């Protein structure tokens, strides 16, 4: 009874705030919780034109199909490895760029560098992949560079599976580094300048200031973004993969998303794709939870 009374009192007092919250709640129910019923088609042989009710229940058939499929381990391994590459290089690159930009005193030069690194973000993915195709062709710039460094003869680099992960990851870095560094630069601008002044008085060098002041100050942002990145480890977009891969590179390039694209969208097995999507989401959620746990234990920074 007491809680009820408290709520009633609060409602009378702050009713307008409750009204303001209604649209958000409705939005969540309609767009986030409502569609969750759709997950049930993972356990059915869903045919859109027969409708949900008339499609047959098949239990765990699609899950078993996925786990027992001949390419299961390969696509899981490729997805994980591609994302680990992404975490190792793609995640750290913008931090390093932001640290370096932060040290630049010349405003004009800084602005030019920032603009140049942002620009690729606005290029369509299809165009980016077209550029990659040209640069890595038989007589492309990158191919020639690789030949110069390794001293070996190569034809189109996209024809070698060993080059797939580097090409994928580093083209990604090229495209996103400027854009991703913005958030770190913003975090750095809010660092209390008295810290740097105190360090100056103590006669501490630039590298040490970076290491002992800047990095620790932006570490909450880094940790939060890292948790998010780990939470997306099972999900990689298929667009870039299918624009770049070919039979010669399947063994390293074929990931869960591209595999599901071929089966789900091309062959319209909507139930199968939903089942795989569900598995990926569960794994992602588990990873997110574990990373968050570790982060909160070690550093007090966490999502919840």
């Amino acid at each position: 009874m007491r809680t009820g009374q408290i709520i009633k009192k609060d409602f009378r007092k702050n009713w307008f705030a409750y009204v303001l919250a209604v649209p958000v709640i409705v939005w969540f129910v309609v767009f986030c919780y409502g569609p969750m019923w759709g997950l049930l088609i993972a356990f059915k042989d869903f045919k859109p034109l027969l409708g949900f009710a008339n499609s047959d229940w098949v239990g765990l058939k699609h899950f078993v199909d996925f786990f027992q499929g001949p390419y299961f381990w390969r696509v899981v391994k490729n997805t994980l490895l591609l994302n680990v590459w992404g975490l190792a290089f793609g995640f750290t690159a913008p931090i390093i760029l932001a640290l370096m930009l932060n040290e630049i005193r010349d405003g004009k030069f800084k602005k030019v560098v920032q603009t140049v690194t942002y620009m690729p973000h606005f290029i369509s993915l299809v165009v980016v992949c077209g550029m990659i195709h040209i640069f890595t062709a038989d007589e492309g710039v990158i191919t020639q560079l690789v030949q110069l460094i390794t001293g070996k003869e190569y034809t189109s680099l996209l024809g070698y599976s060993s080059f797939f992960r580097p090409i994928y990851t580093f083209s990604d870095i090229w495209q996103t580094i400027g854009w991703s560094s913005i958030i770190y630069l913003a975090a750095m601008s809010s660092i209390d300048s008295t810290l740097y002044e105190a360090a100056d008085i103590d006669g501490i060098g630039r590298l040490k200031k970076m290491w002992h002041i800047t990095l620790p100050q932006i570490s909450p942002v880094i940790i939060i973004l890292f948790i998010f990145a780990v939470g997306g480890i099972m999900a990689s977009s298929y667009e870039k993969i299918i624009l770049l891969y070919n039979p010669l590179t399947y063994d390293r390039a074929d990931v869960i998303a591209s595999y599901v694209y071929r089966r789900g969208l091309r062959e319209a097995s909507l139930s199968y794709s939903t089942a795989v999507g569900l598995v990926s989401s569960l794994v992602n959620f588990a990873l997110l939870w574990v990373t968050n746990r570790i982060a909160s234990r070690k550093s007090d920074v966490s999502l919840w």
Partner: protein
Amino acid sequence: MGTTTKRLLNLLLVSVVAGSTLAACSNNNNEPKESADPAATTESSDAPAETAAFSDISTTIRGNKAPTQEQMDEVNNTLNDTYLGDLYDEKIPSHYDAYPYKKDTTLDIWLPADSQIPEMNNQVVQKQVEKLTGIKVNFITPPVGQEADAFTLMMSSGELPDIVIEPERYPGGLEAGVKDGAYLDLTDYMDKYAPNYSEWRNSDETRRKTTVTDSGKLLGFYGIAPYSEWMWFGMLIKKEALEKTGLEVPNTIDEWHTFLTKAKEVGYSEPLNYGSTYGQIFTGIINGAYGVWDWTFMDADGKVQWGPAQPKAKDYLATMQQWNKEGLLNKDWATADFNQRMASAISDKTAVMMDSPDTMWSYWKQQNNIDFVGALNPVLNAGDKSATTYKNFKRTGRSAAITTQADDVEAAMRWLDFAYSKKGWEILNYGEYGKVHLVDETGKPYFQPDSYIYKDPDGQPVATTLVKYRMHSWPDIRDEHNSNPLIVAEGSYSGDIRKTWTENMDTSVAMPPITFTTEEASREAELGNQLSTLRNEYFAKIVKGQLPVDAYDKFLSEAKKMGLDEFLSIHQAALDRYNAR
């Protein structure tokens, strides 16, 4: 129950009743709906002497090289077909009594567009068909290159048009589409609403057999040719390369090797363009010499076999690996797309293409004045007969199906049926009379030298006008050999090459167009997908030299583990049913 609740309930009830009455009213405003059961509707009288209504105009049209406006109007705007000759073994039907159609309808038609004609609704031939049939159409075309995704999304949305062109895109094929409630089973409507199509498909045993399901159902309208079309894909050599090397057109694999090596010596740095958008390296041309066909084929005992699992596969792969190492193949064969291939085709690097003579006549001869000759598929030993898995079973062009959401099934069928009438055949294959084609003394349509096909007012090349002023691939009676401008254009020899190929190659290994049951289809698609991924990957890597030839053993054992035997037995069962049709 409280009064308020009662009142609310009453209000609800009243509004529901009112709503349904309104709906019923709006239904009544429409024309009386055609009953779904064809037996229930009364047959609109099938006039036996329908052409008798037209006056015979063959004397003025046949052989006329400069028709007057009046004559053009008569041919283009009426259904009079008396001037058209009977050119094939079987007579093309002319049932026109349903046109113009009895009521005003607009059909929604989904189709993958030709990249040259992005806006189908302005296509001149379709405008003319609309005028003659009295049935309006609205074409829905997905963005070029995204057809597969767009098709899946359309099916998933549950909102279907009246007619779908290329309905076999439905996973599991037409039969699955009917079972899942996407398409209509047209078996009971055919005789009634599609007299031309029915008569034409029954005019010949092959036509009948390839347009009916194993269980005897008629599910769609198929493109049906008047004859078995010539094969359209093979080895094409630049004439200049033959002159420079001083060699004859090669035939055996050894001769090919000698020729390509010599071609490289005289300056063609990547003599054989090996890749192909028609299935990467698996074009069934060189591998056919080893019996290692691309996919399924029929062996001498009439059993289905899988090409990549044949005994001489290792020989084939070893040879290709060797050729690749010697630099006889284009370097980018695994990654090149159509435009890149055509760019290297016209460059000095390439001496030999594996492609369609029609395509190469346009790219090589017409646009770049490069002459070429065709070669039969290579053989292993001198004296062997060249073979191919391609055989045209008089089925051609595209198919069409009518969806369960079609408002007026009769209109949809009448519109499709027009393409199988004599007038439909003339207009769809040869376009408009006067501007695009004339008719010769025997009643055979032809493109005159100043036809829009060759002299487009907009200045576009024949590769474009052939889809702009006529229908190239359509559910109709396609007259490929006489109405494909790339073949019949003055000086074109692509038709001769295709004819020679067809007449001199053994097609006993070719599979007929079999169909799978719904249950088979999903398993067949799954296995087929896995097997093709496996084959593409291993074969490409071996030829490229990234894997040794012995990796083939691992490939074969993996293919068996995946279910190759099950895959073959599904095909065998389908073939047996086809033979029993």
